[in-house]
């Protein structure tokens, strides 16, 4: 038995992880997406209230490839995907690693509803590719992958489950607590579930819904209570985007966090971006779901504590 037996015993999980990555690539290549690699080290991250970047000298490690990929969209690349490492300061728990793997993809045209469908197709295609049928077991839930998956708005979720309304939760600054404690654990237990139409202030880079500008055209995917992906109809109005970033920075300052400088090149090019959709999916977590892993540690070669 190898001295580092915790690593040795993850071999099977890591082999399956590699298989899942191959299936993801295969899906996008077949759909005509271009695989891209954007810089991991960037001068400034997107200012977002609750996402902190890891400094790297005077620059930062990216927290997501979003800004660079959108610049590619603006430059005429219409279907792109990327699988890359991202870094977020102080995020560590049984479902979080400060260095983790994101899959992001962007496509010109369509709206967030069509993106939900594409997300369904991707995960179903990976499941088939790795030899799973219509069902999988995760966290004791038997999850049925057949289409269509469930869809519920944030407003409906608040009505269906807990003790308060969206408005009240936002006013009392309890939105996140209610989501984490009351709603998330019940999402996607029988079938994967999309929860959509987040409050406008919870989608710094998302387009607002025309019929109801109090919500953003943003959704999250849950399986077995685990948040897997966050997608939206992209905001392509640079003036509005600049305002949102300024507001996010104000929140950061209020919470005693460092403010980030404006990503000026991104903003200057954003108006060239066609109406698009984009999504980030946590690859480590997707592997967790397919392998029925209890913690994110089980699906990576090394955790920071093991380095």
């Amino acid at each position, binding site marked *: *038995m190898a001295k580092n037996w915790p690593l040795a015993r993850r071999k099977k999980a890591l082999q399956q992880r590699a298989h899942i990555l191959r299936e993801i690539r295969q899906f996008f290549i077949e759909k005509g997406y271009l695989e891209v690699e954007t810089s991991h080290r960037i001068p400034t991250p997107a200012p977002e209230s*609750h996402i902190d970047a890891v400094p790297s000298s005077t620059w930062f490690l990216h927290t997501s490839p979003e800004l660079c990929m959108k610049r590619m969209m603006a430059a005429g690349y219409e279907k792109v995907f990327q699988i890359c490492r991202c870094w977020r300061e*102080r995020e560590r728990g*049984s479902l979080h690693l400060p260095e983790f793997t994101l899959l992001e993809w962007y496509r010109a045209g369509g709206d967030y509803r069509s993106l939900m469908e594409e997300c369904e197709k991707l995960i179903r295609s990976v499941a088939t590719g790795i030899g799973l049928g219509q069902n999988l077991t995760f966290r004791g839930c038997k999850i049925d992958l057949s289409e269509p998956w469930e869809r519920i708005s944030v407003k409906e979720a608040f009505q269906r489950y807990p003790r308060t309304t969206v408005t009240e939760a936002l006013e009392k600054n309890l*939105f996140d607590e209610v989501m984490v404690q009351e709603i998330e654990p019940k999402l996607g237990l029988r079938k994967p579930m999309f929860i959509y139409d987040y409050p406008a202030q919870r989608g710094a880079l998302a387009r607002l819904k025309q019929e109801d500008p109090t919500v953003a055209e943003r959704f999250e995917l849950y399986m077995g209570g685990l948040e897997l992906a966050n997608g939206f109809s992209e905001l392509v109005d640079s003036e509005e985007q600049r305002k949102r970033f300024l507001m996010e920075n104000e929140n950061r300052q209020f919470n005693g966090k460092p403010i980030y400088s404006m990503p000026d090149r991104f903003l200057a090019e954003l108006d060239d971006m066609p109406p698009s959709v984009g999504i980030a999916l946590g690859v480590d977590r997707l592997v967790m779901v397919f392998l029925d892993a209890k913690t994110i540690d089980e699906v990576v070669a090394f955790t920071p504590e093991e380095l």
Partner: protein
Amino acid sequence: MYTASDLRKGLKVIIDGEPYIVTAFEFSKPGKGQALYRTKLRNMITGLSIDRTYREGETFDPASLEERAMQFLYKEGDHYHFMDNETYEQIIISEESLGEAKSFLIDNLNVKVLLFGERAIGVELPNFVNLRVMKTDPWVRGDTSKADFKPGTLETGYVLRVPPFIEEGELITIDTRTGEFSKRVKE
């Protein structure tokens, strides 16, 4: 002063003037939302547990407890007897105050007894202790169909996951902070 991001299992903090120890901890962060630190805390005096959720930036005073080097002598019912290494004074700590530590106490183990005022409210174990595996399934060499872990019962009755190559009667090292198998002891 601790902040919420320092929270972890085993951390001792003061809440409403009383010492609490973090017994369970989960970091969560709903999409684009703020970091939440969900904890289960045990009151080190009453033994009662509470659930609390903290946000990033919240601060805590550390529970500064007096520590005294003592040796575990024996267990009698729910009472655990310890002896002060300097004064030879003996004290008793109840099973509920010991919490998870009871799983790793073997006779003559040197521990730090924690005192809040005059009161012994718990013990701090060495990070690693050696305990004997009393019961576990045999290892079938070359059998790859079995799970990567199997249950093993220690001499204290504590059950944990051990690698398949561990046999009954073997001495193993446990990390008391996580309660998990650390390594096999060569005897």
